[in-house]
């Protein structure tokens, strides 16, 4: 029997794989972040570094932000596809795109046209659209803006944007190099903090609030009505309508611009809204009655649970980081009733609703010096600078320096 030597080259030819070049996609420049633009084409300034500037928050989502990816492609042939997917699992795995437990969804209507250099716009709303869902992804349809409000609990989710090489049967090409861009997504701000309390100080209020342990929270904003420096020019304080029937007999409405000063009963008896709203504010000894817009505080703006986005930023009178539970609001006017509320924002700068408000009036205090002088004390009036010693001289350091000098000198002498 003859050995089948002539068949060997043929068999090798049939069995040897056809040489191919692996498909690659390289995000440009150097795999860095995509540019961020609005539908109008205007570019979006990144947020502060501590506010996850490359993430997607509610504001990004509702404004229909686009992420523009630039990339270079190599090694592709006809019959192959490059598709863009988003997902909370690895979208290069077929099961994560196709199974009943899939966590990936398409973010483009069709495959990306294959050419050496590509530029792809992906909508933030499409990236956000199915974060909460699982199962086989439906065919792509542009997500509506309502997806920005779907998130029901605070906290960020890491979503991957995948550029996946697929074959004709929509299975991932083995050996192909896909690109992944991870983006943190959160479209819901922290819950409203507990109501603050306000301590009375001279031309100031000491605001304190319950601590919050949410790790996604970045800080608090403090809202004041009237805003400091705008007492008497703010029209949001509750006026005649809300005061009707109140029992705050000691409250007085002051209108500096018109020279009108009205006791509460007069206001209730019919001062016109127009005159009251145009530059007046309340002073008095008690907060207004609880019938006022449900909070007992004379503000029409700072209402419990109101979304921060609906409040004019002029009412922001302070900010605090997440570890703080207290802050002093200075520069206020004594005997003016201020309504105070706080709200939290998260690491993506999503603003949560404001807390229940509290209201308080700063008031003059009796210092030790006042007590001493009123008792007949005669000391004082001598500035430290006047005796040649600024108040901030670290005297202790001078003494320590002297001692150190003496010790060094002493040791050198040995």
């Amino acid at each position, binding site marked *: 029997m003859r050995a089948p030597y002539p068949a060997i080259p043929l068999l090798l030819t049939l069995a040897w794989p056809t040489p191919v070049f692996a498909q690659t996609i390289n995000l440009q420049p150097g795999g860095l972040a995509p540019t961020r633009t609005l539908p109008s084409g205007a570019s979006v300034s990144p947020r502060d570094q501590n506010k996850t500037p490359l993430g997607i928050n509610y504001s990004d989502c509702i404004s229909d932000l686009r992420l523009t990816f630039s990339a270079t492609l190599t090694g592709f042939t006809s019959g192959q596809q490059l598709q863009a997917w988003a997902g909370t699992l690895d979208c290069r795995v077929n099961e994560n795109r196709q199974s009943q437990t899939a966590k990936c969804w398409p973010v483009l209507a069709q495959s990306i046209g294959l050419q050496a250099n590509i530029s792809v716009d992906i909508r933030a709303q499409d990236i956000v659209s199915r974060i909460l869902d699982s199962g086989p992804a439906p065919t792509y349809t542009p997500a509506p803006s309502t997806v920005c409000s779907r998130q029901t609990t605070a906290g960020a989710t890491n979503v991957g944007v995948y550029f996946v090489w697929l074959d004709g049967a929509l299975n991932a090409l083995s050996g192909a190099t896909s690109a992944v861009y991870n983006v943190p997504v959160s479209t819901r701000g922290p819950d409203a903090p507990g109501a603050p309390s306000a301590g*009375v100080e001279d031309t100031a209020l000491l605001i304190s609030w319950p601590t919050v342990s949410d790790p996604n929270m970045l800080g608090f904003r403090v809202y004041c009505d009237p805003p400091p420096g705008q007492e008497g020019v703010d029209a949001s304080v509750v006026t005649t309508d809300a005061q009707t029937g109140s029992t705050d007999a000691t409250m007085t409405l002051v209108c500096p611009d018109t020279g009108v000063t009205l006791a509460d009963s007069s206001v209730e008896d019919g001062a016109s809204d127009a005159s009251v709203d145009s530059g007046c504010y309340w002073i008095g*000894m008690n907060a207004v009655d609880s019938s006022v817009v449900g909070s007992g505080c004379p503000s029409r703006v700072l209402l419990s649970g109101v979304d921060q986005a609906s409040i004019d930023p002029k009412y922001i009178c302070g900010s605090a980081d997440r570890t703080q539970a207290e802050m002093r609001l*200075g520069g206020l006017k004594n005997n003016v009733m201020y309504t105070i509320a706080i709200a939290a924002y998260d690491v993506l700068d999503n603003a949560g609703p404001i807390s229940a408000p509290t209201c308080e009036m700063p008031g*003059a205090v009796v210092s030790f010096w006042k007590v001493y002088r009123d008792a007949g004390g005669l*000391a004082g009036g001598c500035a430290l600078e006047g005796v040649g010693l600024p108040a901030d001289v670290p005297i202790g350091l001078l003494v320590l320096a002297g001692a150190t000098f003496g010790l060094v000198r002493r040791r050198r002498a040995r």
Partner: protein
Amino acid sequence: MKLLRWLGASVWTLGLLLGAHQADAQDRLTRSNRFESPQRFAAELRFAFYSPKIDSDPVLGGQKPYANVFGDSARIAVGLEFDWQALRVPYLGTLGLGACVGYTTMSAQAKLVVPRGSQIYSSENTSLDIFPMFGVAVLRADVFPRALGIPFVPYAKVGMGFALWRSYTATGTSMVDGVVAKGMSWGPHMAGGLMLHLNAFDEYTARNLDNMLGINHTYLFIEYYSSDLSGFGKKDMLRVGSNGWAFGLVWEF
């Protein structure tokens, strides 16, 4: 100024009378002294019970503004004293000049001018900061541990006390009728105390401390001090001086 000159002259006169010589010329009363490094200085870390005598001012007519605001309890004043042990008096101890700077503060919630119903106090503190200082002549009779092996050193300090003070609230330095709540007070200062020589309890460590840092002796001390910062009875001086007990550590080097 005259007083300081007088104190300086007194120290030198006393030294001459007793046949003093420089402190680094070590006495040879005990065997261990032979191995000591020279000794010229002392440093004190002191903690004093401090209760300003503001209410003792006669112009207050018996009213007690300090006690009414801050209460009767003493505060702790922390201080650092540095002494130059200029002279060694044979068979007695060291005589030198010392200076001390300290700090104490007291705060209390300020009352509202117009109470809000049952709310009398505000959230704001009213405070008084005091930097008590003194310059004194110091005599430390270390003959007992040196000559007799008794680990106690009595000492005395006499000189002048000073204090810078400031009263303030959250809005800054207080001011009433244009008078600012800060100033300086001065007056006589004196103290007497007893130091416990710690070297006696661990001579090995003490010797190492001397070799490494040049610290010859370490003491615990307790003293009673009197700082009458009334400007010798001036009416326009805030009497922030205090009498009381102080304790702490002393290092001689």
